[in-house]
């Protein structure tokens, strides 16, 4: 049986007036049912574009998938028709989006919006049935008195509730893959934890494969089985969560870890990685992280690092990966 999702050498480019932006530049990873992959990186590193590319919903006009394969249950999603793709979206592959405040359509009731996946994917027309399904889904995500909430409009709900609604909408059709794109960024810290717990619960309950996109390693640490760190459109390090946290092989991963505020660590200021992420339209020769790397050596500026494997499932793209693991 093929893995749930296998992304091979995915390349997504944006054609802009000032040049070609290689937003996703040869991304490869795979995911099994029941597994959670954390996709981490700074803004602009290509994590969201990778997710959008999986379901082929890139901004109109400029974004284009130029290479690679997206094998979903063995089937290349890049080869199927738009209509087939649409039928997969929201049924087999579901999304939980970033900002629950703006992700729900303000002019339709919760019930109306929640009925849509059922109508479009399961052809359900019966009002009573739809209503029952919606209420069931709302109950499942822990919305109190769901019967009443169905008639409410998004602006009558709190942010956390709205994210629960978005989640409920995502799982209604029993998907096998759930992509949560920074699902907690826009929420209060206390609510963040609840939503993460909810996602985790849902994932376990339905035995979903889940991709959790975040720029926050601490979120990954709490929820994921494995993690892929992206930088400048590539995965610079990937491995099982304990492996990565125990022995990060890439200086960028290490920097991200230093940026996690930790109780008990005495530091005047929160660590932040110096410099700016590189412009993906003009990547430097050599390692793209070299200009910001604390461990940079001469070779890094002119020699592009290749992937090195450490064991069967830990890989990193750094010339000094070997010595990093040792330190």
């Amino acid at each position: 049986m093929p893995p749930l999702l296998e992304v091979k050498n995915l390349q997504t480019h944006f054609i802009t007036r000032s040049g070609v932006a290689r937003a996703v530049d040869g991304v490869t990873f795979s995911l099994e049912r029941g597994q959670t992959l954390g996709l981490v990186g700074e803004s602009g590193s290509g994590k969201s574009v990778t997710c959008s590319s999986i379901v082929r919903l890139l901004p109109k006009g400029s974004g284009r998938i130029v290479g690679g394969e997206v094998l979903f249950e063995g089937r290349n999603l890049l080869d199927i028709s738009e209509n087939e793709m649409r039928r997969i979206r929201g049924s087999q592959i579901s999304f939980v989006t970033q900002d629950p405040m703006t992700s729900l359509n303000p002019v339709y009731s919760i019930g109306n919006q929640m009925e849509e996946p059922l109508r479009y994917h399961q052809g359900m027309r019966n009002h009573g049935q739809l209503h029952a399904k919606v209420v069931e889904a709302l109950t499942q995500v822990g919305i109190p008195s769901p019967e009443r909430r169905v008639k409410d409009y998004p602006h009558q709900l709190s942010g956390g509730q709205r994210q629960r609604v978005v989640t409920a909408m995502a799982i209604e059709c029993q998907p096998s893959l759930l992509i949560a794109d920074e699902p907690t960024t826009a929420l209060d810290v206390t609510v963040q934890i609840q939503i993460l717990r909810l996602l985790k619960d849902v994932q376990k309950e339905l035995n979903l494969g889940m991709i959790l996109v975040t720029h926050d390693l601490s979120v990954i640490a709490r929820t994921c089985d494995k993690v892929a760190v992206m930088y400048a459109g590539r995965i610079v390090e990937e491995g099982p969560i304990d492996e990565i946290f125990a022995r990060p092989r890439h200086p960028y991963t290490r920097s991200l870890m230093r940026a996690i505020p930790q109780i008990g660590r005495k530091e005047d200021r929160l660590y932040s990685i110096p410099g700016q992420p590189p412009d993906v339209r003009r990547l430097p020769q050599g390692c793209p992280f070299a200009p910001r790397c604390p461990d940079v050596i001469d070779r890094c500026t002119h020699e592009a690092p290749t992937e090195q494997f450490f064991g069967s499932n830990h890989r990193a793209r750094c010339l000094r990966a070997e010595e990093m693991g040792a330190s």
Partner: protein
Amino acid sequence: MTGYIVSRLIQTLVTIVGISVVVFFLARLSGDATALLIPPEATAEDREALKESLGLDDPLPVQYGIFVKGIITGDFGDSFRFGEPALDVFLDRFPNTLKLAAASAVVALLGGVSVGVLGAIRAGGFVDRLTTVIALLGQAIPSFLIGIMLILFFAVELRWLPTSGMAGPKTFIMPAIASAWYSMAALTRMTRSSMLDVMETDYIRLARLKGVPERAVIWKHAFRNALVPILSLFSLQIIFFVSGSVVIEQIFAWPGIGQLTIQAIFSRDYPLVQTIVFVTSTFLVLLNLGVDLLYAVIDPRIRLA
């Protein structure tokens, strides 16, 4: 919702009372009606007699009171010029204006919205560029020129349509297009930009991520959200349609209220001016109320606020 309706109703009532005051005094500011009705060499007694017969000898507040009483009883007095009840003279024409207004509104709305939506979903493409050009032309070419060009082309060259007048459905086509022209262009631009704004939103992205078919994404999710600014603009445009375009009526020999209004103002026919302006404005105020209630239907945030 009830609170919203009640407050809008009260506002509407206040507006109508305001209109009655403004109409009454503005009509009288246009000049002395008797100056155009009797010769300058008429004696002072003649003048007084005329004023008395027209009810212009009473103090202004009394005249206003009579006017308000007339509004309630539906008696707006006799037109100085036509010798008929002013309301009859007005109502003889107003349906013609309303029919053309309705036709123009449909043309403007259907044309503006469909072209605007098309431009928005094909943003940057050829259709979009064509749309922008059309919208620009619409706002740059005056409607009388469009009217004359339509006549020359469809009536004189092709002989498809009658030049003017109000007879069958065919006679509505050219005047409706000419009077809708400007509004259609404005609505096209508004629809395009409003739709473009909405298409960028997260809820449109989520709708697509849910696998909603593109047609439903556009018309269900995007269009209804884009509709509020479109409707606001449209309700402004309706004012022009309903108050009767003098230029369009002139070119297409349309028996509407536009020409009648000008005639009444220039001849200082107070009862007729008052009737036209009051009834038309009241109609528009009510229409506006209708549009406001429609907002509430469209957007729950207004309804439930």
